């Protein structure tokens, strides 16, 4: 009895000590990562906001607070407005194409059993290769008739030659096509995983009730896939909003040409920051990009929450 009571106190002490030790261990484990997130992620973000209100450039680092004048400046800059408009075009052409094509592909893949992973493997290859490499390959394929393999194929089909990247109207859609080719693999994998998560009983039950293929697809499969469609649309929208590498590598001297017809927002930011060294203007443009991405993400959360209701 006595012994038992004596041993309770040190045991309590042990537990408290252990708890302290665990708390201290946790903080120790988190110390470097927290410093990292504070100094490499959080502080630069604040810094970018701050810089967008100054007239700072890297050559003469005299910071002066200029209020909203960088923002007024970019919205009065025709080149910025072109880049904003082009970015919206990338999103509007690109996102529906990627989603529709990859959904169709995933549905087809879901029909077959043999070679399914083989096809998936081939579709995802462009997604994992360096965009710089694929951009140059496509730039080579988009060349004029005697050398461009796509134009040769068109003439083989009896179709007229196209200018592709050399034309102010065709360059942007050409870059979108390359990007769609890159992104399809990613979306097919996610769609396929979503399709395989749909309980077979739902489809069986509908089939027993006499639903045909089209009804199964539009009344059961696609509605159940809705969260995946929303998720991928948001991911692809953000990806197209941030488009840079393809444009830099597929246009002459990375200019976003011809005549700014392919210039996206991020390339505008790059040119302002690292060609004209106008950090104030460039950071103001990054804040605009940030707000657009934030808006899309909030919209996604709202839409997804609404879906959960029923």
């Amino acid at each position: 009895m006595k012994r038992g009571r004596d041993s309770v106190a040190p045991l309590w002490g042990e537990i408290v000590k252990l708890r302290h030790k665990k708390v201290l261990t946790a903080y120790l484990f988190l110390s470097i990562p927290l410093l990292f997130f504070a100094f490499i992620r959080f502080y630069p973000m604040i810094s970018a906001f701050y810089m967008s209100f100054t007239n700072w450039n890297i050559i003469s680092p005299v910071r002066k607070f200029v209020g909203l004048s960088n923002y007024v400046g970019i919205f009065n800059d025709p080149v910025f407005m072109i880049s904003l408009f082009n970015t919206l075009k990338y999103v509007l052409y690109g996102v529906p194409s990627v989603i529709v094509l990859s959904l169709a592909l995933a549905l087809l893949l879901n029909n077959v059993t043999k070679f399914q992973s083989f096809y998936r493997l081939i579709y995802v290859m462009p997604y994992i290769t360096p965009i710089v490499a694929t951009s140059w390959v496509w730039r080579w394929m988009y060349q004029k008739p005697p050398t461009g393999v796509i134009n040769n194929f068109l003439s083989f089909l009896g179709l007229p030659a196209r200018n592709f990247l050399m034309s102010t109207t065709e360059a942007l859609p050409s870059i979108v096509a390359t990007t769609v080719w890159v992104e399809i693999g990613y979306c097919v994998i996610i769609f396929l995983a979503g399709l395989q998560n749909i309980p077979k009983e739902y489809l069986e039950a509908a089939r027993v009730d006499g639903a045909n293929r089209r009804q199964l697809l539009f009344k059961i499969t696609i509605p159940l896939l809705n969260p995946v469609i929303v998720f991928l649309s948001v991911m692809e929208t953000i990806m197209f909003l941030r488009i840079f590498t393809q444009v830099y590598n597929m246009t002459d001297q990375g200019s976003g040409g011809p005549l700014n017809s392919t210039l996206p927002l991020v390339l505008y930011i790059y040119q302002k920051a690292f060609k004209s060294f106008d950090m104030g203007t460039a950071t103001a443009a990054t804040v605009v990009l940030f707000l657009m991405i934030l808006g899309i993400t909030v919209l996604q959360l709202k839409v997804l929450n609404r879906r959960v209701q029923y």
Partner: protein
Amino acid sequence: MARSDRMVKLVSYIVLTALAIVMIFPFFWMVLSSLKPFREIYRPYLFPKSPTLANYQKIMSASLFPRWFLNSLIVALSTTFSVMFFDSLVGYTIAKYSFPGRNIIFLFILSTLMIPTEMLIIPWYVMSSRLGWIDTYWGIMFPGMITAFGIFLMKQFMETIPDDLLDAARIDGVSEFGIFWRVALPLVKPALASLAILNFIGNWNAFLWPLIVVSKPRMYTLPVGLATFSSENLMHWELIMTGATVSTIPLIIVFLIFQKQIIRGIMLSGLKG
């Protein structure tokens, strides 16, 4: 019913194969072009008449491609090991320890996912030029040493480890770090492998930040080197395609070896929605 099923299957295979050819063709064209001598490169036929490896010799001896290859390897491997270690350590700590501020810390880390890289690049550049990080490996690597997404992922997997297992190790006198390193980490190997490979690919392919933080050609990564080399040799498509092949082949090899982990990693990244 069975007949129409067979029809659907047949049509599916035909369409899938046609699209597979479209997807794979640019790779064929890249490799075929890299095997053509310069006098054949502007000729409109698919296969080289006199295939040659001369372009590869040229690229390996007369350009900095071998060096860029090495740079990319160093950068991609170092960031991947760092991400594997720190992301799993943080994920483990948040999943398995209770301490004041745990939820706030987790939310703080997750909230950094909202910040687009493009917004941070200018402050990073200013920071790097002040601290002398321009044209260094550290300068290229530091933004990717720890990732919020990886932490989120590892936390999910660490949560599935039973506490009893960790407590048993504690009673056996294993140190707190030892429990993480020798008990928890081996249990999440598959997830860790997927995270590692996707990170390797991402860092191998990264373009915007290396383009900005590096100005000396000797410090270029492969994508930056390829972009610069290509715009300097615009008429020599056979060399550009050779460079593109050289930067793609290692990834195709990694991909073929680790395809399971890659596909799973992509699926996991889709789960975060």
